[in-house]
């Protein structure tokens, strides 16, 4: 039952992102080549992206996701450096620093704030949508991260997933968002009107304020598509893994089937209800998972406790020996930390 829920959450989560990504790619292509941005064209784009994702799924994890991820990150870093150089460089760094400070200082209040005493509905469209979205993505992102995290300690995994990506997100947002805010407030370019008009054009509208617009917009579109293919690929691996009952290698037609299903759902949701349909699907499937994850915390605590008891009785002595054996021997101590030959000291007469 819970696996069914995971499969559904993964497919809906991916479909939401595919819907957003396609809207953005269509906006970029429209800006570059004057192609239409209507639903029909977007469905065509979904078909193309799904085709690419299917190829990557068939290639498997090493040839597909791993290589794509590295290409993505390299391209994204180049993109970011370009904006830092041509954009308001000093402003970006100063807004990154100040924004981080504001984030940390307002975090306790902001993260528990629930509009309890006001009749505003700001939060529903933002924080609650995001939390639902992240939670509905968490089964598949989590399963994927789990698969690649063997051999890392709990501390390494948690800090690696929480601290570094958080800082990187903040830097990325400062570079792109900060630049856009700067353009807006300085009156250089009215990004806000364009964003209000069609949110998908935001990035491309901002790029027009800088040199080499054609080239950077193309890079933007490539990044949107390749990031999506990577997500979709890891999602298909997860869905495939669950629907084959955990077989080591499931048949290729099955992977292809699920990759195509993703595209189909995104297309239907786009035709049927647009962004609201996608938001609803994401938030609603996230809800049961929020409860599942809360129970999971308890379960994990119980299991960790058990693991530490095990470690203390079985493994710790061996580990301690391999790390500190040399030091101990030097002090004339055995592996257990006690003097090496207690018999000798007890009976000196035998010498």
């Amino acid at each position, binding site marked *: 039952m819970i*696996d*069914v829920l995971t499969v559904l959450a993964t497919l809906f989560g991916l479909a939401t992102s595919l819907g*957003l990504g396609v809207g953005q790619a269509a906006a970029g292509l429209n800006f570059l080549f004057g192609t239409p941005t209507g639903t029909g064209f977007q469905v065509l784009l979904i078909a193309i992206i799904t085709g690419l994702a299917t190829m990557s799924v068939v290639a*498997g*994890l*090493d040839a597909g996701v*791993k290589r794509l*991820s590295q290409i993505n*990150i390299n391209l994204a870093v180049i993109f970011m450096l370009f904006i830092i150089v041509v954009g308001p460089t000093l402003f970006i760094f100063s807004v990154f620093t100040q924004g981080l400070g504001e984030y940390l200082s307002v975090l306790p*209040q*902001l*993260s528990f704030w629930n509009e309890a005493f006001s009749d*505003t*509905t*700001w*939060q529903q469209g933002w924080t609650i949508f995001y*939390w639902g979205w*992240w*939670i509905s*993505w*968490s089964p598949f992102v989590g*399963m*994927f*991260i789990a*698969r*690649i*995290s063997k*051999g*890392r300690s*709990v501390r390494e995994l948690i800090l*690696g997933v*929480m601290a570094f990506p*958080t800082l990187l997100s903040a830097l*990325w947002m*400062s570079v792109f*968002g*900060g630049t*856009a*805010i700067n353009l807006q*407030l300085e009156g250089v370019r009215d990004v*806000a009107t364009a*964003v209000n008009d069609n949110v998908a054009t935001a990035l491309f509208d901002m790029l027009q304020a800088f040199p080499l617009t054609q080239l950077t917009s193309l890079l933007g579109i490539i990044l949107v598509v390749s*990031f*999506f293919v*990577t*997500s979709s690929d890891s999602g298909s*691996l997860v869905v*495939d893994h*669950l629907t084959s*009952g955990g*077989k*080591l290698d499931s048949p290729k037609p*099955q992977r292809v089937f699920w990759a195509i299903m993703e595209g189909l759902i995104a297309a*239907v949701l786009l035709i049927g*209800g647009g962004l609201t349909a996608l938001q609803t699907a994401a*938030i*609603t499937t996230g809800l049961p998972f929020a409860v599942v994850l809360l129970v*999971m915390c308890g379960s*994990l605590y119980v299991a960790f406790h058990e693991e530490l008891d095990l470690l203390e009785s079985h493994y710790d002595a061996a580990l301690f020996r391999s790390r500190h054996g040399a*030091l101990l021997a030097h002090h004339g101590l055995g592996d257990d930390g006690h003097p090496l030959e207690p018999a000798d000291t007890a009976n000196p007469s035998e010498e």
Partner: protein
Amino acid sequence: MADEDLTEVTEAYEDWEAEERRRRREAIYDRRPFEGLQVDPEIDFYPEVADREPGDTNMVKWGFDIHPQVTFWSAGILVVFVAWTLIFQDTAGEVFNEVLSFVGNSFGWLYILAANVFVVVGFFFAFSRYGKIRIGGPEAQPEFTTAAWYAMLISAGMGIGLMFWSVAEPIFHLAGPPPLFGVEPMTGDAGEAALATTFFHWGLHPWGIYALVSLALAFFAYNRGLPLTFRSVFYPILG
């Protein structure tokens, strides 16, 4: 302790560290390329689970190899959902809107509270004595370089969203800052609030949720030999 003794001990310790680094490099280099997500269990913590082969109740037909319950339920629900959206195109939008505001109004607090719980629990596990537990047992070595690991987790987790929202979200907040901040739209203050709010939506909370879920799944798969699925996470409390 005499100086030469100290040197000897330091050398022994450095040798051990070099050995550890070599083992880590070798583990990454020797990794068997894998196609699917399945973890090959190296431990049988629960004998009754270890005796079962994954997918032993599968149906194999027409080039498919499927777990019947999971596949048919998921596919069934999807088909119904997709068909319903297509047939009732006009009313579907309204229904979606109603469901959305119902969930948001009634369970918004649950989302907000739960997300905070995940962040706190994540930090607790990282900084308490549980932090030293290693995924795959004390002797386990990573299968990917740290750079490749980061590249994959960021790409899979957020890449597409970072592309879509990086300009749009701060600008939306600039024009309509969250009421909590009480600042005027389109001012420098609103700019600061906009970035802080964007950091908030893309910061510790989402990554905390991912960290906790991946930690639980990895732990039960590698340290307990259970299949890599959500079912396994509840094994210790539900059996």
